[in-house]
């Protein structure tokens, strides 16, 4: 009896339901990609089979056999079973084989490229969020002064230029025209001959190569955070409890951090999660511009080469990362806001 009550409580729990929703959306996305690849007219599988038949002059049977091994589907099995095979494969981290780098498992490719992008995206996110909050607060406190105007102008210009074009501009001006850095030197994610290891030399080199994508992402995203924080802080400053806190004689520092700051940041967490997806998206183009060896550039190149298994896997991975980040941000939000935390108490 007690166990069933506890179970019921657990299933009604906000966090549990939220997690369930996240898992469900990952599931739907993977399912959709499967059917997109397998069943749509003119789908990648058929295209691959046809191209093999034409270029290699093999029979349909043989071409389909090749496709089977690459796409990890047994074309002779009914579609539904193919689907369950596919899902089982995914659960075991089996994404099939790359078409271009023949016989290389896609999972190996992902393991090789993903960490670099994760590194860039997470550092940029933390940097731009923190900077944006600090500057946004400053703007709200100094509203309608030159500080405010300078940063507002900056962010409205930055929103007008797509991030990968900012990347191009950085290369053109800082790399080529003013020669601040060596354009060829920063390419890739590590210098040639650098061995990964837990030492300062490695970390410095990694940072050196990641610096440009990070700078670009930060410069392009910080404006958005600034404006959001500015708006949110201004709204909070108008709240009664801030006025009451002043009347209570609290120090300016305590009010700014504990009363205004904390309340103003909260709504930003809801957009924080969504921006992670945007950053992954941006990294595809930015990594290509900088030829930084991350998963974004891998996605771009597999797109160009129509390497479907790789595209599909990277997409699923990026989606999973984004959904998890979303989930994390939601939990963080719930943990920070007692109005949600104590719900149902």
């Amino acid at each position, binding site marked *: 009896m007690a166990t069933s009550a506890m179970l019921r409580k657990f299933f009604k729990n906000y966090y549990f339901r939220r997690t369930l929703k996240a898992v469900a959306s990952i599931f739907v996305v993977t399912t959709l990609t499967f059917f997109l690849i397998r069943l749509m007219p003119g789908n990648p599988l058929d295209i691959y089979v046809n191209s093999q038949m034409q270029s290699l002059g093999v029979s349909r049977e043989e071409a389909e056999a090749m496709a089977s091994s690459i796409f990890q589907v047994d074309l002779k099995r009914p579609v539904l079973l193919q689907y369950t095979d596919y899902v089982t494969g995914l659960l075991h981290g089996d994404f099939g084989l790359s078409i271009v780098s023949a016989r290389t498992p896609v999972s190996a490719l992902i393991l090789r490229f993903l960490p670099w992008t994760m590194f860039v995206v997470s550092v940029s996110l933390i940097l731009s969020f923190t900077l944006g909050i600090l500057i946004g607060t400053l703007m709200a406190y100094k509203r309608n002064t030159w500080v405010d105007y300078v940063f507002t102008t900056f962010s409205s210009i930055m929103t007008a230029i797509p991030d990968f074009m900012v990347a191009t501009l950085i290369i053109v001006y800082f790399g080529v025209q003013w020669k601040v850095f060596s354009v060829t030197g920063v390419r890739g994610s590590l210098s040639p001959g650098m061995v990964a290891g837990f030492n300062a030399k490695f970390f410095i080199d990694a940072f050196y190569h990641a610096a440009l994508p990070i700078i670009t992402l930060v410069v392009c995203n910080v404006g958005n955070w600034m404006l959001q924080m500015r708006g949110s802080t201004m709204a909070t400053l108008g709240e*009664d409890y801030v006025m*009451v806190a002043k009347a209570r004689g609290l120090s300016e520092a*305590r009010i700014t951090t504990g009363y205004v700051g904390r309340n103003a940041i909260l709504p930003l967490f809801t957009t924080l999660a969504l921006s992670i997806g945007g950053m992954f998206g941006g990294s595809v183009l930015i990594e290509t511009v900088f030829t930084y060896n991350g998963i974004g550039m891998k996605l771009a190149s597999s797109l160009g080469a129509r390497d479907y298994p790789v595209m599909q896997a990277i997409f699923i991975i990026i989606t999973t990362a984004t959904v998890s980040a979303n989930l994390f941000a939601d939990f963080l939000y719930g943990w920070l*806001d007692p109005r949600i935390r104590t719900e149902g108490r």
Partner: protein
Amino acid sequence: MADTVLEVRDLSLEYRSRRGPVKALRNVSFDLYKGETLALIGESGCGKSTMGFALIRLTPGTAKITNGNVTFVDGPNRINLMEMSENEIRRFRWTDMAMMLQAALNAYNPLIRIQDHFIDTAKAHGLNNKSEIIARARRLLTGVQLDADRVLPAYPHELSGGMRQRVLLALGLLMQPKIIILDEPTTALDILTQRSIIELLRKLKDEFNFTMIFISHDLSLAAELADRVATMYAGQIVELTDVFSAFEKPRHPYTFGLTRAVPTLHGAVEKLESIPGSPPDLVFMPSGCKFHPRCPFATDKCKEVEPKLTAYGGHQVACHNWQQVLEESQKAR
């Protein structure tokens, strides 16, 4: 006459606006007596809430105090609030004079517990012993008829409106201020809750001996609680007198008009009268007496010369034709 605890002289305040300065307070002068309850009444936009803020030099948004002095009299000490440094005034607030805002419902930081509000306040005024603060908070919460064990660890959203109002009173008494300013203390509350807050205010006042200013648009609250009533109109006090004279022998046509606009429950059914027109635009005000466009007693003089608040005995009024108003008000009774 009783001792003065607060002297307000020529207090003026302006809000910046695109259309020009909004003159929310214009040369307001009055004395607050020790232990009394003064009610500030008037319609929205007459400057009564602004006055509450200005008295503790807390200017919201684009407001700026342009003129005047507020002097706090503490025994032999006279302290001019306008000459205090930021840090001094910060410490003055809540220890000597506590101003409680209209929206008790929204007076708390939603992210921290009620006990943290007590601790924050006490720490800001130099009390650092946490257990002592909590013990004091407990006593005060019990004093406002709340269960301290339940309230202290609660988050603001977990309390009802009436409870929040009570907690605010307890919080207000934390530093035992000499003066308490209450802005619309019962406005959003239900009648029975309002009643218990009124009774509570009476009880606390007996117990703690503070002086009270309360701001309300509700005349009946003034009739119930106040010793003296100050009527405000267009950023000025236009009448200031004891509560019985204010209701029974009003000398300003605006006060007179207000008393005739409100029905009573017990008593005869009389036809209510409105005051025609609406309050003036505080950016472009009429000439002369600011009330003259709405005043049935207005003469040519009223259009030209603004009357000053003048004392006739203990009754202060700013009206050229106060005798006629008084006569008319006696006739209407």
